[in-house]
């Protein structure tokens, strides 16, 4: 889904933010979010993603730059007039109100008539399958139920834009996965624009149309999940999204689409040059664990092979996880499917492993 930088529904233009006047938490952020898009801001804590969300919601002001929603600058609009729904990390359900009162709150402050209000509350509750819980208090609900109510409350006044600040962080794994799909389906059904903040990369990949990977106050890469996973543009993204094997080396030869890298162990591998300097500079070669083949015979033609020594074999049920020593790196991981013809290796075995050159990316050191 290509988004034109000038027509995006939400636009950050050269936004900077500092809390103490010394350190920039957000450095020159430019981001355009399309209408109806599900965009996730992903990054480690302290990367500036939550600050961006708070600026968008109006709880923090940008030190520099402009934020526009639907073409209008919102820097000077107070939060309650922005009409942006928000789901908070700890749900922030009002403990002294019932579920129905919580949901009616945004409608009440908008002076919605009683009949319309009740109808909307009911619809919103049905939408998150929480009909019948109207008179409960938030503290009487489980975490997942509270999450649904918080979601319904952020949506009940039909905002065009909904912000979610790590909304699933407090749930256990199974419930979290379940809620991921529910939120995704709600988004698809309602067509609202969602800006979602998380530090959980699986969550980001599962739910989003596009993911903005934040680090050190900057967007490191903004791309669709598959693109992000398969074609990381720098080593931070490669490391942060999913698991990755890295091998350090020096660029020997560099052309438009192939770079030859002499690894620190002496082997030469070719890789797709993504983020490399010139010949002679250090680079970080990255290969996904599931793209590595343990059995030399199964390799297609044109594949690289390299010597490896098995360090550890871990049985994980659906997959096997093999730790190898490759080109001096003792933490080279290979994931293989638990198929009937899959080889089970034992520590100490010396084997040849391989991968396709196009699965191997040369990134910044």
């Amino acid at each position, binding site marked *: 889904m290509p988004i034109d930088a000038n027509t995006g529904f939400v636009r950050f233009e050269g936004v900077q933010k500092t809390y103490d006047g010394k350190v920039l938490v957000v450095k020159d952020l430019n981001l355009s979010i399309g209408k109806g898009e599900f965009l996730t801001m992903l990054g480690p804590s302290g990367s500036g993603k939550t600050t961006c969300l708070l600026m968008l*919601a109006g709880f923090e002001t940008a030190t520099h730059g402009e934020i526009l929603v639907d073409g209008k600058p919102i820097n000077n609009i107070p939060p309650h007039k922005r009409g942006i729904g928000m789901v908070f990390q*700890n749900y922030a359900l009002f403990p002294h109100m019932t579920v129905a009162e919580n949901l009616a709150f945004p409608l009440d402050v908008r002076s919605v008539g009683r009949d319309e209000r009740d109808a909307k509350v009911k619809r919103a509750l049905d939408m998150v399958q929480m009909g019948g819980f109207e008179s409960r208090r938030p503290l009487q609900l489980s975490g997942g139920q509270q999450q649904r109510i918080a979601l319904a409350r952020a949506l009940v006044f039909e905002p065009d834009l909904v912000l979610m600040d790590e909304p699933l962080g407090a749930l256990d794994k199974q419930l979290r996965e379940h809620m991921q799909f529910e939120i995704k389906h709600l988004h698809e059904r309602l067509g609202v624009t969602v800006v979602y903040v998380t530090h959980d990369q699986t969550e980001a990949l599962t739910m989003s149309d596009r993911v903005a990977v934040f680090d050190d106050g900057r967007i490191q890469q903004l791309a669709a999940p598959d693109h992000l996973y398969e074609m990381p543009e720098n080593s931070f993204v490669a490391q942060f999204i999913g698991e990755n094997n890295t091998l350090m080396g020096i660029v020997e030869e560099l052309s438009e689409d192939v770079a030859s890298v002499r690894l620190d162990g002496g082997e030469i591998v070719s890789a797709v040059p993504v983020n490399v300097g010139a010949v002679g500079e250090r680079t970080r070669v990255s290969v996904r664990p599931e793209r590595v083949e343990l059995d030399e015979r199964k390799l297609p033609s044109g594949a690289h092979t390299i010597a490896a020594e098995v360090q550890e074999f871990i049985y994980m049920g659906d997959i096997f996880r093999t730790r190898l020593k490759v080109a001096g790196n003792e933490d080279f991981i290979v994931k293989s499917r638990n198929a009937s013809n899959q080889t089970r290796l034992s520590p100490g075995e010396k084997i040849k492993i391989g991968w396709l050159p196009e699965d191997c990316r040369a990134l910044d050191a």
Partner: protein
Amino acid sequence: MVTDTANRLRSQAEDSVNLRRKLNRSLRMQKVRALLLIAPLLIFILISFLFPIADMLFRSVENKIVSQVLPRTVASLQSWDPANSDLPNEATFRSIYADLAIAVEQRRNTRVGTRLNYESPGIASLFRKVKRGMTKIDVSSFINFFNDLDSNFRDSEWLAREFSEPELAKLLPFSASALEYWRVENPEGGQPDSYLYVSLAVELISASKAELGELERPIADFLVKAQEQLPRLDHVNLRDAFLEIDRKWGEPTVWRTIKMYSSTLTTGYLLNSIDMKKGLDGPEFRDDSERLYIKIFIRTLVMSLTITLCSLLLGYPVAYFLAHQPLRRANLYLILVLLPFWTSLLVRTSAWKVLLQQEGVINDFMVVLRIIDDSGRLIMINNQFGTIVAMTHILLPFMILPLFSVMKTIPESYVRAAKSLGASSWTAFRRIYFPQTMAGIGAGSVLVFILAIGYYITPELVGGTKGTFISNRIAYHISSSLNWGLAAALASLLFGAVLVLYWVYDRIVGIDNVKLG
């Protein structure tokens, strides 16, 4: 097979009993250990605090003094109808003569006078005067009457031997106690004082002749003879003698008061503390001019409420400010809030005296600024205003601390959520933030109110006459008027009022919702 099942069931039952016993034993050990931890404090508080307070509060209904000092009079008044405007009969006057004669020796006549004076002002002087007056009363006829019967009546040793007969002591208990008292006071022996003979004369009138005759003692015959000859004493008129000491002895009110307050337990103090008194037909209100305590109770309540409200109005913003500061700075400010606790309460109150008085700092300042004229200096102390200002200042920390501790626990995300849902800052505060601080408001208000309602030093120093609390009256009765019974009754009522308010508060707000920290 059947026995097997029965045996198994029985052993199961025994097992479960054993299990419960084991559990109880282990729990008991825990309880004992817990009790041992608090035992030193518990014992200390019990001995030095709870028992004395309970004893003090008991004084609000305790009334032994009248029946102890005037036992014969009280017994004699039993047949007298207080609604009657007639005076009690001669026997009562003889009884009170005997009672007072002993009381004067014990120096208890003024004490019973003081006690009765609380209920009927003016009685105290009556009981004071008897000390001199009674020496003038001629009771030689009583002494002579018994001495004429038998010369042994002069001998206290002989009388004591006779009265050691339990039957006789039971028949004439007041005479027995009079003799015993005399013998304690006069261990060298000799002829007893007149009160013994007056007491004997009074008691013999109503004693049963048959029972007297049955006594197997030499004195029995004499007593029977005395009883027969008692009418010879009819000419002695102690009533007139008492009237001569003070005409008031001829007023039925005096006797009514004695009779009404003769029981060992009385509601008198409690009635007094709500401006009532015992009347002939049950409790009745005092005259308007004598009413005092209800007014002071209401004033105490109203002023305590005002102080609570002022503390809340001043403390809420401060607590809000503190709760929204970074932790380190909040702690610093909190120390500033607690700073007043480092100075003595007396110093702080005196400081307010300096500030508020007519020649004080605030008045001077306003005169200099020409806000007020030199002749129009404001009276800000020795009235309710002074008390409210000083006490609000002193009690403010007790409002701020619970408010702060509650506000600290309210996550910022609630207000943010409200704002993101479309509520203005004011609406978010009013509908989301404020209701969640109710626990703190409740805790702070209860704390300040209960502290205020029993406050003593500050109203005493800056309250003047119009700004004093019920506690100042209690202190007055404890240390100046020495009417401890009334002080205890007022304190009991105050205690009761606080308990009632606490109960009401619990019903409305719920004490579980109160958070102190």
